[in-house]
């Protein structure tokens, strides 16, 4: 996107250059860098920026995916395709203990399931990899507690975030020095908004999981939200029935925990228009955020991504 002069792209160019600067700075400081790859739109953008930052070389780090085994099938297919196309190593980690104990979002509840299959799984994978720099696709506009997190966010050896022990970040100077066991979560998309992400995907023609585009899909209505029935593991409650609806996802997570929205937006232009006019935030579809006030902050202190 170094074609200059297109006014509507001007700030995307600025965001892109800033993100590339952050990625290069982090890699220059890293001993064992890794990129958390969640398959969603933000991950797609992050991966694209990393490839730009190091072109003509491949990004000098692997991708890490925490597989809860409850991702949409479309996502897994997309993941494998994308990693292969980028020529990068893909490391997949599942919490085998949780799997053995049959932890799932229905029988254990969203909060417990997330703790075991996501938060604990992530800690296991990070400990095993001894990563010191961990790229994530977090944006400050996603959630209130993220507005105050640093671009380079310090985690202790237990992967916990302490909002009081954050390092001040001035200019574009990042303090990347670490004691043994500590790590930094690096968020190159900090200043991006949801619309920025979609506009950038459009301008750069970045592939994303088809679930972001509206189509007829099987869903049930549960607690006022549309939940897609991705496979036969989903138990229907009394009175629930599967129906076909034209839906899309604004955010993608584990399928029983991520609600869809009714939509006709089946092109990028339509998605951008819908995002600009949206009345609800994208995380409204994330059921785990609603457990409790300040719940994201509590999760982050515990090491959630």
């Amino acid at each position, binding site marked *: 996107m170094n074609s200059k002069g297109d006014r509507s792209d001007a700030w995307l160019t600025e965001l892109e250059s*800033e993100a590339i600067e952050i990625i290069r700075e982090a890699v220059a400081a890293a001993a064992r860098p890794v990129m958390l790859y969640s398959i969603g739109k933000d991950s797609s953008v992050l991966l694209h920026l990393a*490839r730009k930052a190091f072109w003509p*070389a*491949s990004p000098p780090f692997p991708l890490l995916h925490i597989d809860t085994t409850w991702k949409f099938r479309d996502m897994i297919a997309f993941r494998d395709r994308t990693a292969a196309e980028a020529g990068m190593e893909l490391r997949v980690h599942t919490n085998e203990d949780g799997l053995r104990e049959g932890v799932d979002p229905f029988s254990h509840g969203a909060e417990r399931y997330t703790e075991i299959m996501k938060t604990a799984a992530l800690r296991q994978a990070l400990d095993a990899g001894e990563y010191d720099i961990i790229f994530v696709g977090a944006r400050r506009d996603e959630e209130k*507690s993220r507005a105050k997190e640093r671009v380079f966010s310090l985690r202790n050896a237990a992967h916990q975030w302490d909002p009081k022990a954050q390092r001040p970040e001035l200019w574009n100077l990042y303090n990347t020095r670490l004691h043994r066991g500590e790590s930094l979560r690096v968020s190159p998309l900090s200043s991006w908004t949801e619309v920025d992400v979609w506009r950038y995907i459009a301008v750069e023609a970045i592939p994303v999981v088809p679930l972001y585009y509206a189509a007829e899909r099987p869903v049930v209505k549960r607690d006022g939200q549309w939940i897609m029935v991705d496979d036969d593991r989903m138990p229907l409650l009394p009175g629930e029935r599967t129906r076909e609806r034209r839906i899309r996802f604004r955010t993608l997570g584990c399928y029983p925990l991520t609600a869809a929205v009714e939509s006709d937006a089946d092109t990028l232009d339509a998605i951008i228009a819908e995002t600009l006019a949206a009345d609800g935030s994208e995380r409204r579809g994330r059921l785990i955020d609603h457990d409790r006030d300040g719940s994201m*902050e509590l999760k982050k202190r515990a090491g959630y991504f």
Partner: protein
Amino acid sequence: MRPTLRFVLCGSVDDGKSTVIGRLLYDCRQVFSDQMSRIERESARYGTQGRETDLALLVDGLRDEREQGITIDVAYKSFETPRRRFVVADAPGHEQYTRNMATGASTADLAVVLVDARKGILPQTARHTRIAVLFGVRHLVLAVNKMDLVLWDRGVFESIKARYHGVADEIGVTGFQAIPVSALTGDNLTRRSVSAPWYAGPTLLACLETVDVEEPAVGQPFRMPVQYVNRPDSDFRGYCGRVAAGEVAVGDAVRVSPAGPESRVESIVVWDGTCERAVKGESVALTLFPDVDVTRGDVVAAADAPVGVADQFQARLVWMHDDPLAVGRPYVMKLHAREIGASVTRIKHRLDVSNGSRLAASTLHLNDLGTVNLATDRPVPFAPFEESRKLGGFILIDRATNATAAAGTIRFPLMRAANVKWQNLDISKDIRSRLKLQQAQCVWLTGLSASGKSTIANLLDRRLTIEGRHTYLLDGDNVRHGLCRDLGFTEADRVENIRRVAEVARLMVDAGLIVIVSFISPFRSERDYARSLFESGEFIEVFVDASLEACAARDPKGLYAKAFRGEIKNFTGIDSPYQPPVHPDLQLDTEELSPEECADLLAERIEQELPLK
């Protein structure tokens, strides 16, 4: 016009900063209905607006803050209108949070200074303005808030504006826009107020949408710090970085600092191809022909206008850490893409930010601002901060805790360090060591007074000498009779004491000797600094470990007794801290082992780690 405006909002507690941002977001349709219903719920619990929805809750993010009702950290929000894209930093108003204010200001093009119409200009108003300007903000907007509470009285607004003129003049700001607003009602924030027909200027939002903050880029010479050297194979070497100033085109002659070789831009590499030119703000990779030696932290600049290179500077600092500045203590300086050792050699003065007066100071505490002289280990490429934020802004990092201890701005280089050059000598350390049939090294014993350092050092020295090694023993007490006669026992003096001893030890190792240093050396950062002077494997840190009780019971010189009686001040372990090594190369427990056993262990360790030739 700049497509994105980054601004910082500053003001005192209760001036309504978070409400202003909440209102801007709300009126610009950047608040979703689920977020809104959540803050409506929270308003009942934490809100300060009675039955009204408290828009400030949109930005006051963290639990603790919600309960205290204040913002304790910098929060960033991105939002857009059809005319412009914004990133706003919400900086806290509490007086003790100067460092957050500096953080918010460092990336801002413009500062909105918020004043409560009922309270007028407060000491913090001047303070925040001064910090914003010191950290690079060039454009100011004065927003006089809560005008509804003074019934939109024009006289109140005009008198505050006039007083702020005085403040701005004194700080050296040439102009500002003053706007009367009410964040609670949104008057003159996003829509014109019908209550103030006497005000003809723009609303705050209109002002932000149209202000031109572009620095005069034309004529600025090209500068790019190298962040990363991309070498996928032997044929390609791309020097990656973000253009800090000016522009560059294929074929341009460039000079790489600090080494100084000249070359030409062969290509400007971007994703899937190349381009002909790149301008300030763009992240690119350059290839040069002929290829010259370039590493991370070098600066590529226009050949006819290379950047300055120096190792001594005058700089402004804002201290950001609980541990105060220690003059002479080695810190890590991060300046653009370069990390380097640096220490403050002298504090010129501390700045009283409320009135701009200069005060004498021997240290800087958390939230203090001051002007200092700074020396770096090696010459670094730089530009004065006035010219370039990118090449003149830096942070200092504490070596022991890795905390960001300070942020600073380079004012100008000091004296002609350039005239003192390293003389390259023919006889190297290696040659000197080999002549002595040994490997030069520094054995550094640290521990409390009376822990047994001197006794062990003496035994080791004797033993090595008998074996025919060439050694020297530097002892804490002895050195203080001469080299360090002028130093006392304050923290600053202890830092300088260790610095001198470490430098002497380095010279002696350079001369091929095995140097045994026996010093309390209580601070981790100084010992780390000492280690940094030596090559890997040349420095052995030995922790001579005995409890304070044991040392006090031994007390061969009667010092502990005096310290307990208060006759000696700053005594390590009593009223001055001792920071034990975290990962010493060797730990000797002198409560369990005899001095002879310790010396044996040490000699063994020396031979095992660094076989004597």
